[in-house]
């Protein structure tokens, strides 16, 4: 029924409005081939069904997913057998999370087929996936802090009493207690989730997934916030689930974990499934070599050594677990790359320097002088600029015009008596930068939200150029930007360095860091684990430093 309603919905819409938006027709088209393609994979399945013992529980084939300006998944495939732990690996942005969001009904694919126990399925939402027994435990936990563990587990399906009017708290707690006992964990059903450690909250999430009688459990980097003892406990639970025949997809960056628990490893890169290998007998080096080697826009390798004159120096920066004793310096005309895995603390370093977050300790010198940066306004006054990875949230006021976004940091300059706005000057200078950076927009009065990712990024860059900032921190400068626009952004960055700006580039895309940087700092778990020369560094050497773990347990 869900399928039928889905098919009719778009056609109704198309019929209702005479002139459907072009987006709608595009969205409707891929749906048709997807339906038509169904008989074909059945035939393709046949060779597999010769050996029914190994028939996978989940089979995903030809999965396509596009976002505006990004082709996130290209013909991706994945399968999962009952009772196995299947590690899913790849660089940030390789498409792992997108693929798993499709499997768990959070997103719909543009094309492709998902089979569950041999039957093709269409998931109308996360609830539909859950009803089939497919659950996901997100990296950011989705629990309600003020409810108890039992209330969280059975939210939306509480046992009732008194003609269904009241929640049967006693049964609720008893059911949860039974569940915890079954998992061999010691959790109080009546404890509020908000007061628990992340590790224990995670156990509650797992219990919730199990309570749905899950046959498939997706875990997205479950150990990122756990200490060694907690990790060991989690692995025990995973082993127990495995023994019960649950198929587990385990997304991780950590090689040692894969070695310990995974049966098979699938590596993704650029939205494609690169290879699936047995975990045993596959070396870490082999996995890393599959993960790296992304294609890159055609931009020459940076040359020279950058400048000599030191512009920014950071000493002993600390902020919680995410930034630990970080010290470095950037020179005039230099591009300094910051490499590392997601959560390594690179963004936190940038935000702390920029005054967006308050560091616990650390000294910042600009042009040799110690400066005090408490707010972003202070940072900007000292010529620092931060270009966030999340442009729409932190970089742009998207409902305001291109002109206002380019000029926002410099508005004070365009006033009479510090009061009247001189719109003429704003327009002229905004146009100047639109031309200079070749921003594609019908006019400077266009709302910024209507532009593509690449053009939005150019507007953020224009903002800081107009403000005359000479230290630019780019956080994932090409995230969500298509390949052609990427090349333009790279050239822009190299040009800025040649003009004498000091540039820090935080990037999770290794080829990007390698091409752009004179020097590369690699971070892992809040620390700088090494410095590499941009000319001699390789993806492998970066990955080795990026996956280096601290010996001690937290």
């Amino acid at each position: 029924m869900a399928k039928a309603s889905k098919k009719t919905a778009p056609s109704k819409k198309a019929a209702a409005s005479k002139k459907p938006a072009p987006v709608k027709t595009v969205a409707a088209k891929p749906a048709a081939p997807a339906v038509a393609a169904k008989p074909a994979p059945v035939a393709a399945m046949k060779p597999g069904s010769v050996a029914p013992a190994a028939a996978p529980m989940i089979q995903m084939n030809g999965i396509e997913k596009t976002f505006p300006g990004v082709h996130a998944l290209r013909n991706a495939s994945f399968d999962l057998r009952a009772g196995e732990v299947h590690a899913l690996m790849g660089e940030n942005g390789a498409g792992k999370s997108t693929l798993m969001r499709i499997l768990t009904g959070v997103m719909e694919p543009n094309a492709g087929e998902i089979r569950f126990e041999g039957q093709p399925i269409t998931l109308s939402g996360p609830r539909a996936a859950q009803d089939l027994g497919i659950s996901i435990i997100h990296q950011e936990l989705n629990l309600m802090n003020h409810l108890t563990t039992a209330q969280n587990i059975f939210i939306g399906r509480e046992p009732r009493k008194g003609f269904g009017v009241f929640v049967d708290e006693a049964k609720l707690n008893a059911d949860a207690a039974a569940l915890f006992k079954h998992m061999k964990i010691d959790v109080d059903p009546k404890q509020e989730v908000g007061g628990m450690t992340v590790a224990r909250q995670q156990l509650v999430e797992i219990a919730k997934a199990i309570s749905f009688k899950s046959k498939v459990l997706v875990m997205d980097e479950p150990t990122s916030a756990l200490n060694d003892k907690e990790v060991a406990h989690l692995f025990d639970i995973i082993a127990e689930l495995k023994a019960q025949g649950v198929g587990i997809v385990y997304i991780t960056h950590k090689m040692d974990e894969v070695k310990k628990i995974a049966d098979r490893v699938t590596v993704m890169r650029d939205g494609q499934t690169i290879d699936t290998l047995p975990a045993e007998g596959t070396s870490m080096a082999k996995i890393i070599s599959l993960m790296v080697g992304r294609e890159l826009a055609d931009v020459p390798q940076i040359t020279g050594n950058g400048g000599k004159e030191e512009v920014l120096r950071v000493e002993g920066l600390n902020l919680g677990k995410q930034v630990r004793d970080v010290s470095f310096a950037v020179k005039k005309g230099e591009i300094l790359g910051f490499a590392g895995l997601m959560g390594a603390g690179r963004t936190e370093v940038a935000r702390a320097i920029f005054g967006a977050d308050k560091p616990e300790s650390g000294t910042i010198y600009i042009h040799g002088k110690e400066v005090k940066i408490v707010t972003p306004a202070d940072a900007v006054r000292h010529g620092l600029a931060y270009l966030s990875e999340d442009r729409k949230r932190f970089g742009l006021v998207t409902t305001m015009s291109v002109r206002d976004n380019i000029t926002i940091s410099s508005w004070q300059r365009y006033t009479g008596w510090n009061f009247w706005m001189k719109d003429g000057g704003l327009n002229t200078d905004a146009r100047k930068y639109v031309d200079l950076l070749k921003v594609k927009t019908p006019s400077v009065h266009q709302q910024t939200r209507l532009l593509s990712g690449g053009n939005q990024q150019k507007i953020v860059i224009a903002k800081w150029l107009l403000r005359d900032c000479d230290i630019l921190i780019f956080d994932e400068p090409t995230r969500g930007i298509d390949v052609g626009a990427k090349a333009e952004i790279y050239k822009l960055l190299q040009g800025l360095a040649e003009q004498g700006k000091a540039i820090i580039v935080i990037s999770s895309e290794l080829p990007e860091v390698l091409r752009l940087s004179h020097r590369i700092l690699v971070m892992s778990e809040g620390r700088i684990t090494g410095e590499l020369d941009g000319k001699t560094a390789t993806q492998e050497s970066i990955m080795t430093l990026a996956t280096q773990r601290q010996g001690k347990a937290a």
Partner: protein
Amino acid sequence: MTDTALTTQTPRFGGLFTTSALQKAMAFAVLILLLLFFSIFAPNFAAWNNMVNIMQATAVNGVLGVAVTFVIISAGIDLSVGTLMTFTAVMAGLICTNMGMPMGLGIIGAMISGAILGGVSGTVIAKMKIPPFIATLGMMQVSRGLALVLSDTHPIYFNDTPNYGLISSESSISLLIPGLEIPNGVFVMFGVAIIGAIILNRTIMGRYIFALGSNEEAARLSGMNVDRWKIATYALSGLICGVAGLIISSRLNSAQPALGMGYELDAIAATVIGGTSLSGGRGTMMGTIIGAFIMSTLINGLRVMGVHEEWQIVVTGVIIVAAVYVDIVLRKKT
């Protein structure tokens, strides 16, 4: 190529008006329809005297609406505008009557005292990170209490300040054009609205208020001194409440310390009916004034038709929700 596309643009008001032009047109159409409806179905509604009544009744709510529009566009809320109005009226009374100072000082005193209390709200919100709803709820009580304390709970009359009526109740224009008995308070309201629109669209403060309301974090990371402009926004709101305090006390020829509660909700309703988004970043002064007119026209028309006061309240409630619903539907389409 882009250059030619750019030069053909007429950049007078930027993108600020275009997004809400439709809502404003809608609100204006609703006002015209209401006027037509009551003219046909309510005897004597269209009489000039009654029109003057409507305008008179709109003046205070319109000015308070302008005050609260600034705050709402900045993605805040100001619940203290009604009682700040009363507080400033009492201040004017203290200065003019109790201290016997000239009327000019009373006017300035009312506006400055309003700005100071507004600034206090803003400081609490910006520096102590108290949600605007709570901070201004507190200020609502504080200013109400202060008005009662300072006036010793008794009304202060402006009998010693003969020109005080000029602010609102008297009609200077009727001296020029006999018969055109529009009270001065109406002109003050339009004046405040025009100055408000200029501040919103033509000054750096207005630009920052829109930026604050659209994406505060992006504005902060762009180097904007968010705290300072938040405080300034609430102070401006308080200052405009001072003008409302002068209008109402002039009309009543007295500062009534017990008055003021409930005015803030009418002002917020006028703002919302006029197409200003409660989530911030979008709104116009013109819309707010039209919204204030819609509310007073509705109440007046129903009264003239003989609808019980209790039902008038019910209808205004429905209108507020309907206006916001129309806003949501329109926004989805664009």
